[in-house]
């Protein structure tokens, strides 16, 4: 149904807002309040003659202000995609809501004002269609993800044009990705991650240097401890039949120096298929036992991080490691009882843990005795906790 344009045309002969209103009119009689409100606001704009600039700008601002109220507007954490979850886990301290608000106010809303004539609603309702347009076409969603990923909101705010060029290149590639173009795209992406003017080989060298330094984050005291091994515990242990390959050597080589396990296996003539599980099942637990039970090797925030990871168990690995048919007897629960990072005093004795589980009716006494509980912790749960702890700490080092 054509509408009556009550205000004179703009200097170029077309009132863009009238066209916008025209496209919105099919939604005028649907049952959504928000749709009615949006249409009324655009009608208000159109009714003000373009030469009454101030009034018209105020009316336009009122309409644009409604964008903040759109129910499906991208909001961090509302309904996270796997990619968002991944980024959030990487940068937990990043204030994503504040970044999103800045991007919305400083980039996306002005862009909406400039490009509103490109808005063609097609959905069943007007408001969600407008929300999708802002999220996708005006790229609120992608700008936020780029900003979280780079941890540089200014890149999205101040350098929008360059960002658009980069995205365009990516979009062309993504629409028709080919093996031949892959190295160029990766080189560009990696270049964005390194400081301006630094060559790729130099960056790789510096990155390795930083990684090596970060690999020693467990403080010099800890490194000295491993090297000196004052109680001789790490020197005394080795995989069966390979006495030269002590736990001390393995920790120095694999954890501190980040040497490749296959290279270490070759050097000591141990089959890799033997060394790797042994490292995971025996060396890591012994190692973490030292890290966690001996005081002062990590900073308090590292212990906080580890506690947080165990409590949150974001991947569900610890809670999923449980005795068959006894889900409460799991690696997370036992870690909270047994690890020194949770307790100033000694770990809770297994007998007490066992009694407490019986009282909670988490298991029947006949199904699992105290020795079996201890065995489950030592053989299954603690190796998993230890591997996860190493993974978490090592991954955070790289970030």
């Amino acid at each position, binding site marked *: 149904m054509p509408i009556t344009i009550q205000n004179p045309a703009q200097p170029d002969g077309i009132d863009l807002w009238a066209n916008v209103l025209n496209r919105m009119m099919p939604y005028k009689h649907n049952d959504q309040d928000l749709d009615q409100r949006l249409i009324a606001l655009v009608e208000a704009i159109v009714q003000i003659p373009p030469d009454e600039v101030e009034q018209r700008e105020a009316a336009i601002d009122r309409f644009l202000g409604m964008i903040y109220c759109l129910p499906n507007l991208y909001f961090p954490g509302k309904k996270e995609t796997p990619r968002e979850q991944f980024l959030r886990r990487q940068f937990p301290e990043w204030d994503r809501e504040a970044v999103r608000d800045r991007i919305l106010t400083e980039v996306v809303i002005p862009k909406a004002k400039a490009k509103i004539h490109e808005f063609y609603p097609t959905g069943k309702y007007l408001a969600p269609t407008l929300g999708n347009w802002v999220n996708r076409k005006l790229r609120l969603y992608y700008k936020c993800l780029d900003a979280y990923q780079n941890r540089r909101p200014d890149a999205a705010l101040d350098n929008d044009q360059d960002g658009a060029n980069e995205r365009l290149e990516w979009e062309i590639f993504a629409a028709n*990705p*080919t093996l031949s173009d892959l190295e160029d795209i990766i080189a560009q992406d990696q270049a964005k991650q390194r400081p301006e003017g630094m060559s790729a080989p130099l960056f*790789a060298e510096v990155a390795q240097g930083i990684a090596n330094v970060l690999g020693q984050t467990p403080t010099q005291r800890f490194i000295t401890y491993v090297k000196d091994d004052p109680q001789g515990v790490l020197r005394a242990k080795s995989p069966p039949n390979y006495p030269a390959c002590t736990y001390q050597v393995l920790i120095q080589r694999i954890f501190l120096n980040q040497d490749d396990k296959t290279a270490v296996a070759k050097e000591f003539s141990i089959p890799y*298929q033997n060394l790797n599980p042994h490292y995971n099942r025996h060396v890591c637990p012994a190692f973490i036992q030292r890290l966690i039970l001996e005081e002062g090797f990590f900073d308090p925030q590292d212990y906080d991080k580890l506690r947080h990871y165990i409590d949150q168990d974001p991947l569900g690995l610890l809670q999923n490691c449980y005795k068959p048919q006894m889900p409460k007897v799991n690696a997370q629960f036992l870690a909270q009882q047994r690890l020194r990072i949770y307790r100033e005093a000694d770990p809770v004795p297994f007998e007490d843990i066992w009694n407490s589980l019986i009282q909670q009716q988490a298991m029947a006494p006949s199904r699992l005795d105290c020795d079996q509980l201890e065995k489950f912790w030592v053989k299954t749960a603690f190796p998993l906790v230890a591997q996860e702890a190493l993974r978490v700490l090592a991954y955070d080092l790289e970030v």
Partner: protein
Amino acid sequence: MTITVEQFDNAISLELPQDAQEWARLFAAKQGDVATGKQVYLNTLAVYALHHYLAQQSIESDLEQSQSWYPHALSAPNAADLLVPGVGRVECRPVLLQAATAFEIPDTAWDDRVAYVAIGIEERLDRVYLLGYLPVRSPDNLMQSIPFTQLLPMADLPDHLHFLQEGLTWLESDDEVAVQVRELQEVYSLTHFVAQLETAYNETEDVFQDSRIADCLSGAASEMGLTAREAVLKSPATFGLKAEDDLSEEDMEDMVGILAEDVLDKLRQIWGNRRRRVT
């Protein structure tokens, strides 16, 4: 001689969603050099492809619990595993068609996997080809390069995963034989060990099955540097022995042989007479 997709009668063509490229790009950008970035990119596509294919077959897989989803220099830049809950980790290796001459599996990928899938990649990256899969091999039969002719049809992978799930459910149970097996072998993950048993069971004539399973059991002990005697005596009560029992090495090997027969009986109950289709 290099290969083309036309050489694989049973290959499955799969269009990848845009998400796959986005994840691959994200991970590749975090690597220190282009070569590693490219490897990570292709690994991510391969892992995502299998995840996508399994979803189409209504089989759940978990990207977030796979090592390949955290590719960084300090842990596993060349990881390409996909966790199938209740089954184990499937290795997804990208194979560059027109360039590859054999199915290459790095040393680091042999351990703790339940199968290895070859994902063919051509010039266009938005489409891949699931060429086939390889079951776990016995530890004395590991090779880095495997002829493509040894791949099994991809369409059989869902059944294979189902077998492994059934086997794992048993091995994790309180069944007396399962408990003895768990005590005897500690070196491998249970998922990987079930896959070894499955290979021994499925690739062997009936009369040799028990000796292959005994090899698996004593092989796991010897991987830990233990003789059968030492492995059994780690937890004598589980095998109905007392610490002071003085049994010879031969006696202990007999005990492992008897355990292998018990395991075989259990596996026959679980897996019946099913055999893999061989190409």
